[in-house]
């Protein structure tokens, strides 16, 4: 890990620009917002998984302090939400899950709102529950939504390349297994929040924790039936998101409707239980994978069949197979590949985007299955991987164009760091897993762009105006570092203006590890445009050709001269406009990466302009008495293109690994007949400080030609191969494969007993 000296700021360890306000308690999160006259909104949710219902709100309306009670009848023209527009904000006559919204109230304080909720009378007429994907797919299963008479969502995924069935048939060695992935909660430490305020009948301001301000503006316009041009989204400081805020949800629409009905600002703030019950989850899945290889361990076939429990309504979870297709088609070189995926409606919770977007599930299944294949083929699992590495310059079966690829370097670095050849003690195991993920944006919508404006003022302060969203991942700091590097201005003179759709330019949202890559590129280019303007102005002032101006560490001076006689940024900026026909140093750049929208049918196309690779390796020790898995050491080697902020990238990987360890070993939303049994932080186990193993991070810098300074996006990478690496290490320790997450002590003990 060498600090790179080519740059003044890039690659260094820089504290976050927003760290101070967060360390002092000054940061304004949603629940800190105070608007004059603001009312408390609250939602009544279903007490059944599947039922018809009638509702009587008359008692609730009469409670003093209750300002409004609304149901689906109140605003019948409000349109549906969801990827398939199957989700009304307030349900009418029928509920399909415990999270379903059936009425909402606005009151003068939380206690009165709660009283009003309790006073609403609902009569349910139960319908048979459909809480199991196999049952949901049966011939005569009860139907959840009329538009899906077989309970299967209409878009299905069928990707094929070559002849995988034939190749599997002819393979020297083959293996087929089924893996089960559980429901996992994002557990952002800040529960969901929204506030809304109307100015007249069709002008709306929403205070939000969304990750997609501009798409939300569009969603709200469409759903509420008002011009999106009359909507302003102001983002609060966001207390974690991880994909959970990538969609517009019923509670946000309900907040707007309550504010409309009351003519006052209204807020809705979830408590932790509501957060568990009514926010999105990671998509659970049952995945069957087959691999085939030659005698020499050359992979010839991969067949991947996923059935996803979509829950009651569609959100982004319904499209996770789109990204599953990346590892299925392109993780290692495999000539013949098939991926099929279908999503099934059930009366369970519905899923959204969650760090990795389907990739953690797919990578778990693929990388577990590869170890199983290695065992059948009698090849060392590491060796099997080495024989099938991806390489730079490759075009994969999905038409992903691999520019830079550090898979080999990552693997070898991880092998060394985990000391692969060190003999294993009894009940000790070692495991590996690799990953590929989009690292240069992901064209999921027609636009994958983002715009940035950079302004330099008379005092040398640089303001970066952006539509990008900071959710804790550190993009603001990366932008400030880029501006500091380019304009030679110290970090403390740089500020970031974001969080408001009125001044931030379009941004497709924080997803797909795209923000530092996309917005970094936009910032870099805008800064260079400003620099040109400053150089030109400095040349004029010095009465020399612009080509003869040297710019170093924020000082402009003539070639051959010395920095002491030069002009600083602020002076040059002033010289530009303290004159007639003056100009102001500022520039806007809108960056849209050279990637492609994939064909929805064939799923082919170069979705990202570069791809991130990484290897996770771990050593575990299993206690045969208790079944507990202890991770002795965890190594994460990642092809990050180039490190922008060393401190930030380490934090992203640490956090991703922690979430991956939780996914692998502890986290599990337990549903019984559609009801969540553990909606609290005592029974839903999050990783604590004591659960974290010693970690070693290795950054492989492959200098991507499209990345800002060569960087790739890595926000999701830390989570993706973690569970697979742990599962492989557990297998190595106990000699039995656990294919269902989480790998709990009970499952480990059962597996050990099975071996004996």
């Amino acid at each position, binding site marked *: 890990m060498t600090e790179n000296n080519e740059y003044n700021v890039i690659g260094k*360890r820089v*504290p*976050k620009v*927003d*760290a*101070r*306000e*967060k*360390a*002092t*308690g*000054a*940061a*304004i*999160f949603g*629940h*800190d917002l105070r608007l004059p006259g603001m009312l408390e909104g609250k939602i009544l949710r279903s007490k059944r998984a599947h039922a018809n219902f009638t509702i009587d709100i008359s008692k609730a309306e009469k409670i*003093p*302090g209750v300002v409004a009670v609304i149901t689906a009848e109140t605003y019948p023209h409000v349109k549906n939400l969801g990827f398939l527009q199957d989700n009304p904000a307030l349900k009418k006559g029928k509920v399909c899950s415990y999270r379903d919204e059936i009425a909402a109230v606005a009151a*003068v*304080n939380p*206690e*009165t709102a709660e009283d009003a909720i309790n006073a609403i009378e609902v009569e349910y007429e139960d319908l048979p529950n459909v809480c199991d994907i196999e049952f949901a797919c049966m011939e005569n299963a009860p139907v959840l939504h009329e538009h899906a008479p077989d309970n299967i969502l209409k878009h299905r995924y069928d990707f094929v390349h070559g002849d995988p069935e034939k190749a599997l048939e002819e393979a020297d060695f083959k293996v087929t297994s089924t893996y089960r992935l559980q429901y996992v909660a*994002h*557990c*952002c*430490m*800040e*529960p969901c929040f929204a506030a809304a305020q109307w100015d007249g009948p069709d002008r709306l301001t929403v205070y939000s924790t969304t990750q997609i301000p501009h798409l939300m503006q569009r969603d709200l316009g469409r759903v509420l039936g008002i011009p999106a041009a009359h909507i302003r989204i102001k983002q609060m*400081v*966001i*207390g*974690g*998101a991880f994909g959970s805020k990538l969609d517009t949800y019923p509670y946000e629409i309900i907040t707007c409707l309550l504010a409309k009905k009351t003519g006052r600002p209204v807020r809705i703030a979830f*408590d*932790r239980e509501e957060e568990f019950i009514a926010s999105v989850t990671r998509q659970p899945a049952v995945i069957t994978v087959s691999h085939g290889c030659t005698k020499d361990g050359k992979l010839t076939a991969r067949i991947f069949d996923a059935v996803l429990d979509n829950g009651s309504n569609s959100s982004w979870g319904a499209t996770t197979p789109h990204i599953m297709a990346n590892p299925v088609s392109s993780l290692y070189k495999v000539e013949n590949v098939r991926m099929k995926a279908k999503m099934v409606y059930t009366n369970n919770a519905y899923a959204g985007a969650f760090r990795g977007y389907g990739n953690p599930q797919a990578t778990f299944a693929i990388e577990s299955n590869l170890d199983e294949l290695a065992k059948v083929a009698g090849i060392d699992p590491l060796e099997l991987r080495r024989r099938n590495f991806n390489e730079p310059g490759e075009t994969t079966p999905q038409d992903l164009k691999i520019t830079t690829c550090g898979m080999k370097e990552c693997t070898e670095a991880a092998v060394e760091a985990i000391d692969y050849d060190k003999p294993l003690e009894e009940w000790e195991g070692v495991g590996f897993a690799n990953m590929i993920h989009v690292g240069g944006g992901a064209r999921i919508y027609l636009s994958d762009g983002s715009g940035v404006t950079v302004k330099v003022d008379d005092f040398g302060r640089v303001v970066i105006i952006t539509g990008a969203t900071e*959710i*804790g*991942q*550190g993009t603001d700091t990366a932008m400030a570092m880029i501006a500091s590097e380019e304009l030679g201005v110290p970090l403390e003179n740089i500020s970031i203006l974001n969080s408001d759709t009125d001044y931030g330019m379009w941004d497709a949202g924080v997803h797909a590890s795209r923000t530092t890559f996309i917005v970094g590129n936009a910032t870099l280019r805008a800064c260079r445009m400003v620099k040109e303007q400053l150089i030109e102005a400095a040349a004029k002032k010095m009465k020399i050709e612009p080509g003869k101006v040297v710019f170093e560490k924020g000082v402009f001076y003539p070639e051959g001269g010395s920095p002491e006689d030069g002009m600083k940024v602020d002076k040059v900026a002033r010289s530009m406009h303290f004159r007639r026909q003056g100009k102001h140093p500022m520039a806007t750049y809108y960056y849209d990466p050279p990637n492609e929208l994939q064909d929805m049918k064939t799923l082919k196309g170069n979705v990202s302009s570069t791809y991130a690779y990484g290897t996770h390796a771990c050593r575990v020790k299993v206690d045969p008495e208790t079944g507990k898995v202890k991770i002795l050491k965890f190594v994460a080697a990642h092809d990050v293109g180039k490190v922008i902020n060393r*401190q*930030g990238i*380490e*934090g992203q990987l*640490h*956090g*991703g*690994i*922690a*979430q991956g360890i939780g996914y692998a070993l502890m986290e599990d939303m337990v549903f019984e007949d559609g009801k969540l049994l553990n909606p*609290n*932080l*005592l029974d839903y186990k*999050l*990783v*604590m*400080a*004591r659960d*974290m193993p010693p*970690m070693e991070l290795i950054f492989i810098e492959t200098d991507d030609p499209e990345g800002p300074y060569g960087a790739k996006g890595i926000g999701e990478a830390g989570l993706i191969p973690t569970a697979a690496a742990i599962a492989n290490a557990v297998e190595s320790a106990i000699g039995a494969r656990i294919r269902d997450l989480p790998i709990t002590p009970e499952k480990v003990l059962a597996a050990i007993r099975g071996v004996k």
Partner: protein
Amino acid sequence: MTAKGEMISITVTINGLPYTAAVSATMNLTDFIREVANLTGTNVGCGEGECGACTVFLDGSSVNSCIVLAVDADGKEVTTIEGIGGPNGDLHPVQQAFIDCGAIQCGFCTPGMIMQAIWFLKQNPDPTPEEVRAGLEGNLCRCTGYEKIVDAVLTAAQQMNAVETSVR
């Protein structure tokens, strides 16, 4: 404020200033801090004593303020995240270490985490990494994987001890 039952007048001293209000018997200390004193640095992650986001000092001891009744803090001293720095915006060494070490991502857990760390270091001024991890057990963070938080606490301990030594 309309509330069930009778209101009780209490006075709680927060960061050196007394706040008197009539509150319901069920109001918790977090709400008193946030709504009565209008100090919003103390966050609520669960309201059930499980996450530590609401950690403050009550008469010098660290507590989850969400599970302390406001009436039980009557006549007592509370310190919140807003009360630990010096004058003129000076930071507490633990705050500074959290910033310098990259222990903050989304920042929602941060005020509670910093309060717990300060209290822990008072009990154990020269801890091992394992002791720090144990000392932070009641405080959840979903972003950082705790690694840099532990670094920050150890760094703060070192700095605070160095200052101590130089004063002596």
